[in-house]
């Protein structure tokens, strides 16, 4: 008998084991939903899958009479645009400041305390300020994501930069590299895959801030929609929307993972991860 830590499931078994919790949860929902609907067929809290599919289909196909837009797609587009721009700006700032902080002690001495303090400010507490400063348009929502995500990325990258073996920086210098060339040819390429990894971890936070900002002030967006229909207890819209957001988050995550594996094979092999 193998030790438990050495027992790995077979390929097919892995799928089955992974699927099992989903099936169990689904069955639990169905039984609860059935029980409620048996008591009151118009109960809105735990709608049947058929009802949800119908509502979702309606949202995904029906054009708005006034604007000609299809709600699901305009919501999705608006939200994706905000999160991609927000996270993109954060990643760029994180990479630049992280590399400078990690690579140049003089910069680190100046910026590091600021970053540490900034990362402790609860971004949601800044939201009113952002609304006052940027109005309730796109800028405020994107700014919230940037403020919420950037300090984490900077600190993560700075840590990785400091953990690169000194030998490599010394080696580059003995090969004639200037400070700029060390940053560009040693730190930048080695930190970029780590940035992608950190960005994947930060996506959850980014979604949190996106939906919070949309819930408070927006005219469209996935977060806006679920908070809007909450007033009518429309669980048949909210639940599919949550599932849809989860799917989008999953796809974005996989996209980042895929890009990282494709562009930085050496990183994934040496980290021993295949996530």
């Amino acid at each position, binding site marked *: 008998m193998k030790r438990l830590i050495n027992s790995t499931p077979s390929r097919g078994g892995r799928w089955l084991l992974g699927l099992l919790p989903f099936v169990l949860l689904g069955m639990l929902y169905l039984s609860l939903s059935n029980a409620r609907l048996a008591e009151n067929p118009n109960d809105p809290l735990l709608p049947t899958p058929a009802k949800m599919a119908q509502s979702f289909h309606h949202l995904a196909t029906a054009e708005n009479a006034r604007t000609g837009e299809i709600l699901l797609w305009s919501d999705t587009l608006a939200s994706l645009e905000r999160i991609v721009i927000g996270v993109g700006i954060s990643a760029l700032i994180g990479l630049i400041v992280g590399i400078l902080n990690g690579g140049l002690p003089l910069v680190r001495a100046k910026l590091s305390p600021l970053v540490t303090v900034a990362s402790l400010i609860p971004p949601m507490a800044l939201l009113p300020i952002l609304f006052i400063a940027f109005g309730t348009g796109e800028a405020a929502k994107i700014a919230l994501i940037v403020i919420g995500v950037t300090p984490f990325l900077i600190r993560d990258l700075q840590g990785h930069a400091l953990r690169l073996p000194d030998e490599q920086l010394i080696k580059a210098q003995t*090969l004639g590299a200037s400070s700029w060339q060390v940053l560009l040819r040693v730190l930048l390429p080695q930190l970029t895959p780590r940035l992608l990894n950190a960005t994947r971890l930060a996506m959850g936070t980014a979604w949190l801030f996106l939906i919070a900002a949309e819930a408070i002030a927006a005219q469209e967006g996935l977060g806006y929609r679920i908070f809007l229909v909450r007033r009518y207890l429309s669980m048949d819209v909210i639940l599919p929307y949550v599932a849809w957001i989860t799917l989008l988050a999953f796809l974005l995550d996989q996209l980042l993972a895929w890009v990282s594996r494709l562009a930085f094979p050496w990183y994934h*092999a040496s980290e021993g991860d295949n996530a």
Partner: protein
Amino acid sequence: MSLLAAKRLEKHYGNHVVLENLNFSVESGEFVTLVGASGCGKTTFLKMLLGTEATSRGRLTLDDHPIPNEPGPDRGVVFQKYSVFPHLTVLGNVMMADELRSSKLLGKSFGAARRRGIEKARERIEEVGLDQALDKYPHELSGGMQQRLAIAQALMMRPRILLLDEPFGALDPGIRQDMHVLINRLWQEQQLTIFMITHDLKEAFELGTRLWVFDKTRHDPQAPEAYGATITYDLPISRDRPSEALKETLQQGGLQTHTQETLL
């Protein structure tokens, strides 16, 4: 005027005296091999020559000037580990020196300059026997192959001084022999001055023109960190004198030190 010279050189880490009372002068073109027990400060000494560890006391001069306190292209190095860039292929690693020189802004060469660089790098890669692995990343190479890559990379620079920290430790005897031939040839061709740390006394005799034995001359059992190691033996090696005879000389010196017990 000697290339490198030290006078009463010391290195401490806090209260821990690692090296003390180092006095030497090394001429251009010498091949110094360093042996000594593990942890006695050989790597530390190399780092002082590199300029990454400051001297604690005494003088260490290069061309009669205090040694620069940062690494530079005049002093190449092959470390015990982490000596190659994990994000570059074999070719990329070896081309690095050339690319850094040809493009100050991007550190990357293109077009004709790049083709010339590839040509030069390939020759060197062939010499260390890695031509089958041009496009492999370091993690796909064995420890010995990584070490050979590091040597090829360091030698693209044509440094004046080459510092080698147990460069052949992970190699099998056959390849080790090839590497000895290669190092020997490059040392003569490029008129390098080489410092090489090794745990293999036979290798030290075979390659070097001068052997240094690092060891402690004083020892306080109550405070093992109070005294540091120094160069207890500074022996010229000539090619026509067999290493066996030298070992005898060493033993006749009568210093029954830890180093000799472990090495001989």
